[in-house]
C-alpha cells in the first residue's frame, strides 16, 4: 500500500531543525538599549534557496503545521513546570509519584536559583528525581541541549536508567573520547573525566548544564577533581550531595564557590565575616541567607516524606550434622591457608568468597572449590579435592527447607536475595518443584530482559530470586516482602537490597526475613548488622559517607575477614565486632557536623 504521508525536506531553521544545527548562523547582535537582537541568517539562506527551487508544500499542511507551532508554544510558556504534564503518563506507567518537596525544589532551582543549585536533601528523599526533573524542564523549555552528568563510576548505570525510565531522557554513558563531543546528554565517571586526555576535550565544550552527583568529593579546592570541575564551561549547574559540609566551613565555601564564584565573596572576606573558627560560624543568619540562595536541603519527615516501617524477622537455620561438619572443615581450610599466606595476599580474595559462599549454599561453594582446583593451587590440592567431593555428596539443604516452610506463610509477592548465581539457580529449582512461579533476575540480563522480567514479576510470578548485581537501578515498590537467603558482608549492599522495595512510593511496611545459619559466620554478620549498627530498621542515610570517612568503602569485607581469621573463639569475635560496630557508629557521629545545622535551619 502506498504511503500517503507527504514527507518533505525541512526548509527553515525553526524548532527542531535549529536544534539539530550545531551552529545556527545569526547576524551580529544589534543593541536595542537593555538587550540585543540577532536575526537568523541561516533561515534566510534556506528560505531563498527553497523558493528558488520552488519547493512549495500543500497549503492545508502549512496551516496545520502553523497550528502545531502555536500549540507547542502554548505549551512552552507555562506558569508551572512543563515537565509535570509531559511526564504524567510515563510516571503513571512506571509508578513514580513526585513528592511535593521534589516539585518545590525543582521550581526553586529553576525560578529562584537560575539553574545553579546545590541539592543537599537527606539521603532517600530523591535528589536524583529532583535533578532529573530540572534537567527535563530545561530540555522542554529549549534551554538545555548539551548536558554532562558526572557521577561515581558505580552510579553511572543507575543514572542512565533513572533518566530513561522516569524522564524519558536517553543519555549516553561515556565509553570513548568521541562521546564527549557527540553525545548531547552524557553520563561519565568523574574520575575518568578528570584524566588529562579527557579533561582537555571537556574544557573546550560549552555545556548548557552540568550535574555532579556525590559532589561532597569536591569540597577540597586543592584536589584535581575540584580544579577540573572549576574549569568546565557551563550555564546551569546542579550539585547533589547529602553532606555538603563535614568539619570545616571552608569545605562549604569551596563547594559554593565552585557552583557560583563570589556568592560568599573572597575567601579572605568570608573568613573574616563568617568564620569564628573552622567549625563555628559567625553571623549565622546572614550566612544562612546567602546559603539559601544556592542550596536546598529537605529533611525527612518535615512535610517531605515519611517512610514506611521496616520489620525484621530473623529466622535461625540449624544445619544438619553433615552440613555443619563440611562447613567446619571448609572454614578450617580457609583459616589455615589464610594464616599461611597472610591477609594482605592476593589469595585472600578467593578465600573470602569461599567463606561467604559456604554460608550461602554448598552449591555455590562447590563451584568456587572447582575453580580453585582448576587454577591448581599446589599447596591445597589434596584437601580441596576432598572438600569438593564432600560438597558434591551433600544433597540436602537445610536453608532451603526452611525457606520452603517460610514461603507457605506468604500470600503476596516475595523477592529472595542471594549473592550467588549457583544458589539462585538452586532456590529457583526448589521453589518450582514446590509449585511456585519464579523468575530469576541477575546482572547477566540485558536491559530489555530485565524490564521484561520485572513485568513478569509484577504481573505473573510470585517469587523473584535475585542477585544484587541485578538489583541496582530497578525498583519493586509493588512488593513489600524480601528474604535475605544469605547476608552480604557489606552494609551498603544490604541497603541496596532493601532499597529495591523500601523507597519512595512504597505504601506498606516492608518485611525483611533474614535466614541465618546457627554456628556459622553468618551469626556474627547478623549480630553486627542488626544488633550493633541496626542496619535493618534504620535508614543509615550517610552510610556511604561514613564508610568513606572510615576508609572502609573498599575494605569492609577484608576487615571482617581479618576479625574472623585472627580470632578463634566466639567471644573474641563478638568483642572485635563490638569494637568495629562502635567505629561505624562513631563515624556516623563524626560526619554529623554542627555546621550542617546552618543548612537545615536555613
Amino acid at each position, binding site marked *: 500500500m502506498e504511503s500517503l504521508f507527504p514527507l518533505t525536506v525541512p526548509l527553515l531553521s525553526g524548532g527542531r531543525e535549529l536544534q539539530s544545527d550545531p551552529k545556527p548562523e545569526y547576524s551580529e547582535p544589534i543593541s536595542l538599549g537593555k538587550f540585543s537582537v540577532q536575526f537568523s541568517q541561516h533561515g534566510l539562506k534556506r*528560505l531563498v534557496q527553497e523558493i528558488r527551487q520552488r519547493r512549495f508544500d500543500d497549503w492545508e499542511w502549512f496551516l496545520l503545521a502553523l497550528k502545531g507551532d502555536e*500549540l507547542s508554544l502554548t505549551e512552552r510558556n507555562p506558569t508551572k513546570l512543563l515537565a509535570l504534564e509531559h511526564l504524567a503518563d510515563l510516571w503513571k506507567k512506571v509508578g513514580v509519584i513526585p513528592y511535593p518537596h521534589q516539585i518545590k525544589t525543582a521550581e526553586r532551582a529553576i525560578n529562584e536559583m537560575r539553574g545553579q543549585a546545590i541539592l543537599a536533601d537527606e539521603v532517600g528523599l530523591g535528589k536524583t528525581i529532583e535533578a532529573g526533573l530540572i534537567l527535563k524542564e530545561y530540555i522542554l523549555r529549549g534551554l538545555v541541549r548539551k548536558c554532562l552528568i558526572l557521577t561515581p563510576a558505580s552510579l553511572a548505570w543507575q543514572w542512565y536508567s533513572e533518566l530513561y525510565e522516569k524522564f524519558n531522557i536517553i543519555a549516553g554513558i561515556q565509553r570513548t573520547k568521541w562521546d564527549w563531543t557527540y553525545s548531547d546528554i552524557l553520563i561519565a565517571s568523574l574520575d575518568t573525566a578528570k584524566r588529562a586526555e579527557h579533561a582537555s576535550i571537556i574544557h573546550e565544550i560549552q555545556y548548557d548544564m552540568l550535574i555532579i552527583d556525590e559532589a561532597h568529593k569536591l569540597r577540597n579546592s586543592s584536589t584535581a577533581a575540584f580544579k577540573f570541575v572549576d574549569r568546565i564551561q557551563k550555564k546551569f549547574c546542579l550539585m547533589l550531595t547529602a553532606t555538603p559540609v563535614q568539619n570545616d566551613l571552608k569545605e562549604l565555601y569551596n563547594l559554593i564557590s565552585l557552583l557560583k564564584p563570589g556568592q560568599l565573596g573572597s575567601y*579572605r572576606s568570608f573568613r573574616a565575616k563568617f568564620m569564628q573558627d573552622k567549625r563555628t560560624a559567625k553571623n549565622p543568619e546572614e550566612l544562612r541567607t546567602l546559603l539559601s540562595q544556592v542550596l536546598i536541603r529537605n529533611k525527612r519527615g518535615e512535610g517531605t516524606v515519611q517512610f514506611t516501617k521496616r520489620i525484621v524477622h530473623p529466622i535461625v537455620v540449624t544445619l544438619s550434622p553433615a552440613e555443619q561438619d563440611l562447613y567446619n572443615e571448609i572454614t578450617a581450610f580457609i583459616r589455615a591457608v589464610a594464616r599461611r599466606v597472610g591477609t594482605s595476599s592476593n589469595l585472600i580474595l578467593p578465600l573470602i568468597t569461599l567463606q561467604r559462599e559456604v554460608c550461602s549454599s554448598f552449591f555455590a561453594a562447590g563451584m568456587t572449590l572447582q575453580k580453585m582446583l582448576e587454577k591448581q593451587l599446589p599447596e591445597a590440592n589434596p584437601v580441596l579435592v576432598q572438600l569438593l567431593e564432600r560438597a558434591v555428596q551433600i544433597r540436602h539443604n537445610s536453608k532451603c527447607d526452611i525457606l520452603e516452610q517460610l514461603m507457605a506463610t506468604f500470600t503476596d509477592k516475595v523477592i529472595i536475595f542471594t549473592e550467588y548465581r549457583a544458589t539462585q539457580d538452586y532456590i529457583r529449582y526448589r521453589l518450582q518443584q514446590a509449585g511456585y512461579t519464579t523468575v530469576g533476575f541477575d546482572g547477566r540480563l540485558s536491559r530489555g530482559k530485565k524490564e521484561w522480567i520485572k513485568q513478569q514479576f509484577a504481573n505473573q510470578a510470585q517469587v523473584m530470586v535475585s542477585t544484587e548485581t541485578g538489583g541496582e537501578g530497578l525498583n519493586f515498590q509493588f512488593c513489600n516482602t524480601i528474604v535475605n537467603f544469605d547476608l552480604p558482608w557489606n552494609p551498603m549492599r544490604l541497603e541496596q537490597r532493601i532499597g529495591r522495595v523500601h523507597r519512595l512510593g512504597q505504601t506498606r511496611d516492608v518485611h525483611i526475613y533474614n535466614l541465618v545459619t546457627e554456628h556459622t559466620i553468618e551469626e556474627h554478620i547478623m549480630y553486627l548488622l542488626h544488633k550493633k549498627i541496626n542496619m535493618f530498621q534504620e535508614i543509615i542515610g550517610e552510610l556511604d559517607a561514613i564508610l568513606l570517612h572510615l576508609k572502609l568503602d573498599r575494605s569492609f569485607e577484608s576487615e571482617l575477614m581479618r576479625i574472623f581469621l585472627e580470632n578463634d573463639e566466639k567471644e573474641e569475635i563478638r568483642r572485635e565486632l563490638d569494637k568495629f560496630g562502635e567505629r561505624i557508629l562513631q563515624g556516623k557521629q563524626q560526619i554529623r557536623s554542627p555546621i550542617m545545622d546552618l543548612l537545615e535551619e536555613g
Partner: protein
Amino acid sequence: MNVDKNIAELVFTFFRLLRKEPLEIRRGIWQVFLDEALAKELDGWRAKERLFQFTFDRKLADAYGAELITSGSYRLDTILQAVQKQALLSRAHLPHDRFHEPSIRASMVQRLSGSAQYPTRFYVLNLERSFSPYLWIVFQISRITHHRRDTLYSISVHLCTGRVTPLPISTQLFVGGPPFGPVQRRVLSYKQAYNKLCRHIGEELAVQDQTWAEEAHEALEAEQRKLASFFEGSMRQDELAARQRALVENYAPRVLVQPMRGALLYVPNFCYKLMEVGQTERVFHATYDPLTHEVTSTERDQSSAKRSSSS
C-alpha cells in the same frame, strides 16, 4: 486559547490530510489504521503497521487502554513533531470572489467623491483583476535570559512596494497554490524582503515593554559584582575577565529571531479604470488593496500619481 479543543482539531486534521478517517468505536474513543510509513514517523524505525486507538479523555484512557492525547502527552508530542516537520514553505492566493465587488466599487467611488473639492461624478469604465505578491513569514521570537520565552510573530511584506504589514485576513480564506490571473511584477528580492521584515521586527521590539531585559540586566550586574568580589586582590585577572565574558554570554538578555515557516501569498487587487466628470473630465486608474483598504489612484499618463487617504 482552548488547548484541548485545539488538540482534538489538530489530531483530526492530521489524519484527514493523510486520508485516514478515525472511526469512533466507542463514545470518546477513536481508532485509525497506521500504515508502516506513518507508524515509523510516529514511533521510530522499528514500528510496524497497526490499529491505533486514541482518546482525549484520561478516564477513558485508563478504562479502555486507548492512548491518551492531551497536553504534554507522549502521543501529542510525536504528532506535533510530525506535523511541525511538514510544509515549511507554501503558497496560496486569495480569490477575488472572496470579496463583494459591488460594495468595493461603491465604497471606492464614495471615498473618491468625498475627497473631491467640488461636486464630481465618477464612472467605472473597466475593472482589471490582478494579484499582489506578498512574502509572509512566521518568526519565532525568543527572549533569552536564564529563562527563555518564545512567541510567534507573523508579518508580511509586499514584494512590489516593500510595505510591511500584518496579515489582517484569516489564512483560512486563502486557497492553496498560485493564482489564475496576472500577478504584479516583484520588485524586491527575497533577501531584501526578509531584511525589511527583520528591520520592522527590530523596530517593534525596541518600543515594546523591556522590563524583562531590565530585570535580567540587573541580575547580571549583581552576578558580575559577586564575581569581582571573589577575585578581589587576586592576581588572576585573566580568569576574571574570562568568567565575566562567560556570564555575559550566558545571562545577558537577548532576543533571537528565526523564521519558522514562510509562504508566498497572492492578494487580489481591484484595479478600476474611472472617468471623473466634474469641472473637468479625466480618465484615471484606481486600485483597491483589500489587505490595507487603501485606494491608490494613478493618472493615465502615470506622471501625476495621487494617493487618497486610507480608511
